[in-house]
């Protein structure tokens, strides 16, 4: 074998190993999700069977039908939960993004007193686990009378997300050269126009990532929501999962079905936004 053939063979081995490694990693990441989807179609006996039944024998849509068939026939108020989740997640994401953009821009572009301390302070709020706050929040909220309202959860989620959105968006604005906004101002823009015409589109991917993150955090949050919600007025989908637990039994199939309902919008949104996450958009702005 000459050297070229050897190198080619090594390359082939390497790419094969690469692919096998990737496959294993993807399997570990994806299998639980697929298992949930599968479990939502199978009767409880099959889910709980030991040893596990790998090949499903008995698939049905029963869980989904039951879920929508009203209280009393094994149904839960899934439409209301879904509505609450959407309202709370979308609103809190929008607010967190607006604050994140304002704050991130300020940190990236302006000099002001105690800048790094403020930044550090914001980040430190993230070190407190949300669940540790649930009891104090509960007291404050019940005094204010905002337990079991959309408003209460939105406020909590905005507070949860803002430090992160500021941090992420700050990083992206830093990557947009300052010269660009200045060039835009010379080209006739006001500061405001320069921001929207030039800096915003260039930081767009970062803002979209921050948006996905904030949305998913709110959409999946359970610890705070389970304390601060009571009824269909404000219960979100993660809290709704608990409807499938009774004193002695858990309806695993129903729970999985609801989980699938929860996952779908998150997946769809992520895919839609991800298409716009074109990175390297700022390349070519400066120098050669």
């Amino acid at each position, binding site marked *: 074998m000459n050297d070229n053939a050897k190198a080619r063979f090594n390359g082939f081995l390497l790419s094969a190993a690469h692919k096998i490694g990737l496959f294993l990693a993807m399997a570990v990441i994806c299998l639980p999700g697929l298992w949930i989807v599968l479990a939502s179609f199978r009767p409880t006996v099959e889910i709980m069977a030991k040893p596990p039944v790998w090949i499903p024998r008995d698939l049905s849509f029963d869980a989904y039908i039951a879920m929508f068939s009203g209280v009393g026939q094994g149904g839960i108020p899934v439409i209301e939960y879904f509505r609450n989740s959407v309202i709370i997640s979308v609103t809190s994401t929008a607010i967190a993004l607006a604050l994140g953009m304002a704050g991130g821009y300020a940190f990236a572009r302006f000099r002001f007193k105690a800048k790094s301390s403020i930044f550090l302070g914001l980040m430190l709020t993230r070190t407190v686990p949300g669940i540790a706050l649930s009891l104090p929040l509960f007291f404050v909220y019940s005094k204010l009378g905002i337990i079991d309202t959309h408003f209460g959860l939105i406020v909590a989620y905005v507070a949860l997300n803002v430090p992160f959105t500021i941090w992420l968006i700050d990083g992206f604005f830093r990557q947009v050269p300052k010269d*660009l906004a200045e060039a835009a101002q*010379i080209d006739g823009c006001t500061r405001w126009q320069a921001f929207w015409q030039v800096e915003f589109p260039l930081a767009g991917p970062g803002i979209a990532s921050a948006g996905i993150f904030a949305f998913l955090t709110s959409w999946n949050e359970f610890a705070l929501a389970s304390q601060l919600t009571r009824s269909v007025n404000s219960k979100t989908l993660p809290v709704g999962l608990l409807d499938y637990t009774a004193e002695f039994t858990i309806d695993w199939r129903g729970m999985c079905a609801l989980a699938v309902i929860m996952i779908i919008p998150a997946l769809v949104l992520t895919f839609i936004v991800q298409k716009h996450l074109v990175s390297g958009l700022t*390349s070519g*702005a*400066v120098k050669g």
Partner: protein
Amino acid sequence: MATVSLEKLVKRYGSLEVVHGIDLEVADREFIALVGPSGCGKSTTLRMIAGLEPVSGGNLKIGGRVVNDLPPRARNLAMVFQSYALYPHMTVRENMGFSLKIAGQKPEEIAPQVEEAARTLDLTHLLDRRPSQLSGGQRQRVAMGRAIVRQPDVFLFDEPLSNLDAKLRTQMRVEIKKLHAKVQSTVIYVTHDQVEAMTLADRIVIMRDGYIEQVGTPEDVFQRPHSKFVAGFIGSPPMNLKDAEIADGQVVFANGDRLPLPARFKDRVTAGQKVTFGLRPDDLYPTGHGIHSGEDADVHRQDLRVILTEPLGNETLVFSDFAGAEWVGRMLNPRRLSPGEALPFCFDLSQAHLFDRESGRTLRG
């Protein structure tokens, strides 16, 4: 078309003053170059004119109107940045038409203006590319195109060529000169490269540490530098500047070597005065290989030992030993020299300069 006046213009960053009350009158359609070493306040001055930095003191007038507190968009100027600052998310066409779009012009009005500018700069075939798909020189031209589309009163350039390689830089220099001849706007051009300033500008402003050292035509600043700093900054290779003292009507160097005191300084120096003697390489040449600018009486002849030569083809730079230091001379119609060789040299003292060593100011009237 507009004049630009700086009146006692000051820039402070907090308590740090970086531009110390400079005065400058730029005439309509004039090409002014601001030169000086890095950090001397050229960009800061330009950015104040552009409106990107607030003015800390004094007045800034464009077209006779005080614009101190007007935002950039109200000053009708265009700026080419060192980094080009092209909008990466727009095509060349959109980049060039951006200012017109912001001004509210319709697409069908914008298109012909952009195409006209693109023709001028030979960018037509690149109009639909994005900045990331262009070479450095092309980006540079797009940046200029974006500026001319605006038809501004004043063009501002901040070291526009410093990111290009030497050959492209020479080429773009010519294009900028042609462009100025064509658009006939006032231009303020910042560079740290004195060759660029000399070749492009009607007048050169030499800055140092936030002060203006001298303002003058290229010939002015080259032939009549007001200070040692200007003398050393303008010209390539730089002027020979050596410390000396005046004694017995002669210029006496530290090691005792002497040169006659040029006639026109006779009444301007006193015995024992500490001076800096300056002579351009053009005025120090092996006998028969240079041009006298003055009368023969002003030429001092002396044999010097050659230390090193730099042949440039049409001429050779000769580094030779005099007064215990290295002096650069320029040899026209060169022949081959070997280091260590002793040669008769001419010092054309009619072109010599004398500066007061203390103040650095010129001693000529």
